[in-house]
């Protein structure tokens, strides 16, 4: 039993490292997880003088928005890239569950993106001498962990969707901006028309943001974080089911380009 767990951990670790090594050479990674947060933060921070707790909310919104782009373009592209490299067959028909392998790769991509986004945001904060309030560091850390888990699960789900729809690149571009506008991060949900307010509710990152907004006003409201965790679980379950169905259908119909 422990040996199986160790092996599973090793599979995840190896997949994670392989994904991260591949990311070092991809320019999109720099655009979405370095250029984008720096640009957004510079623009927003320069517009008016912010109080420290307002700044935390802005930083949270920027970091989470960048996180969404990074998830779509990096973790969400894992299977699409596997197909273009011709490695899809070996990745999804190995000795291990395809979901375990995908989990490792998605986690690798998400960790890398989060590290880049946080480092570049921190650099902007220092350079522009922004004052940020950090009211409950431990809760903030918990929120960060939820972001990591959420990014990983969302990346897995998007990966599967982009694989089965076959037009992954087009879908990636098409998904980015609606979420920028409707995701409840940059534009508060109550500024949205009534009939569109359900959109942010489906995005775990929006709930994390709500939680951080609560923190910055001094209150620890656990409900938004719990909703984010629940949505993360739902993404994960959907991803595992979707991947299994896609691989089975691919083997049956010969459509998954399993070579």
């Amino acid at each position: 039993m422990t040996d199986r767990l160790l092996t599973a951990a090793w599979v995840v670790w190896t997949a994670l490292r392989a994904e991260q090594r591949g990311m070092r050479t991809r320019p999109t990674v720099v655009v979405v997880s370095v250029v984008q947060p720096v640009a957004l933060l510079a623009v927003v921070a320069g517009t008016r003088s912010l109080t420290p707790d307002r700044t935390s909310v802005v930083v949270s919104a920027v970091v989470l928005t960048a996180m969404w782009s990074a998830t779509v373009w990096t973790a969400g592209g894992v299977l699409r890239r596997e197909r273009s490299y011709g490695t899809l067959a070996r990745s999804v028909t190995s000795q291990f569950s395809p979901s375990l392998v995908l989990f490792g790769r998605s986690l690798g991509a998400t960790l890398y993106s989060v590290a880049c986004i946080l480092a570049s945001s921190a650099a902007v904060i220092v350079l522009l001498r922004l004052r940020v309030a950090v009211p409950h560091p431990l809760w903030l850390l918990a929120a960060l962990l939820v972001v990591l888990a959420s990014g990983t699960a969302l990346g897995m789900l998007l990966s599967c969707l982009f694989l089965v729809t076959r037009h992954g690149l087009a879908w990636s571009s098409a998904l980015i901006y609606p979420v920028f506008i409707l995701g409840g991060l940059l534009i508060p949900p109550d500024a949205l028309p009534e009939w569109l307010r359900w959109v942010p509710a489906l995005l775990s990152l929006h709930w994390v943001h709500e939680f951080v907004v609560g923190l910055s006003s001094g209150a620890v409201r656990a409900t938004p974080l719990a909703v984010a965790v629940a949505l993360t679980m739902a993404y994960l379950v959907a991803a595992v089911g979707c991947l299994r169905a896609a691989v089975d259908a691919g083997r049956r119909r010969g459509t998954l380009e399993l070579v």
Partner: protein
Amino acid sequence: MSGPAVEVTGVGRVFGRGRDQVVALRDVTFQVAEGQILGILGSNGAGKTTLTKILATLLEPSTGTARVFGHDVRRELRAVRRLTGVVFGGDRGFYGALSGRENLRYFAMLAGVGRRAIRAKVDDALADVGLAEAARRPVETYSKGMRQRLHIALGLVAEPRLLLLDEPTVGLDPVEAERLRGTVARLRSTGVSILLTSHYLLDIERLADRVLILSRGTVTMDTTAGEFARSAGFAATVTVRGRGPTPQRFDALGATAEDVEEQGGVWTVRLRVPEWGGGTFERLSAALAGLEVLAVDVAPVRLEDVYATVMGRLSADEPTGTRAP
């Protein structure tokens, strides 16, 4: 261990629906005994890769059953995968930014090579295919032949008991191709069963114990390598060059002249000798007596000839085939 390594019974595979439907395999039945090499021949689109994919669990058969060491390829995926190594070859199939070793290590892990053994096995496989020195370079800098060798290392690294090789020598230089044939022969001697498709008849000639011919998805020939070589209907080709009037008949040999050429008073005649036995040489001398012979070349039947003859015969039998009048 009893039972065949591969047992394919009535396997069919259809792609698409309606008017776009393609029947890639139709009622294919054959076996590969443990430790045997089965060579699969067939023209482009005959269904060789489809068959290989089915045995590798990448594709489900539409009908029939296929078993690898008794494990059903439809139901016992993991067991089949644990016992099987696959080489499809080609330029793709790797992470270009990662080194050869990193790629191999990753795929060896996926193939089930254990944590403790992986380093040694990866190094062995790299050395086996002559990539030890290039192992640190990113795969995107590899030449076609180096990629092909990495594919082969990938198929071997988990020490499979059944190896599926789909055109493994494509893109290899003659020295590397020969080295691969050596590796395959060595694997067979350790009891590995091998299914080998190739358009290079030299691969089949050197390695195969049995030969299977696929033609438009059906098995049209399944025989031993020796039987296959005999099925051309002749044992040797004799090429004679001479001057003077061109001879047409070589009755003493029981052969007729084929491919007669004449240029500047010198003729070249190719003969197919049905059998090569004790007295053949004397009969050849007798047949050539009285001719002004410049050169004689005797070559045993080559697999190219056999293949051309067999395929010619098959397309002549084909009821719907288009044939020149």
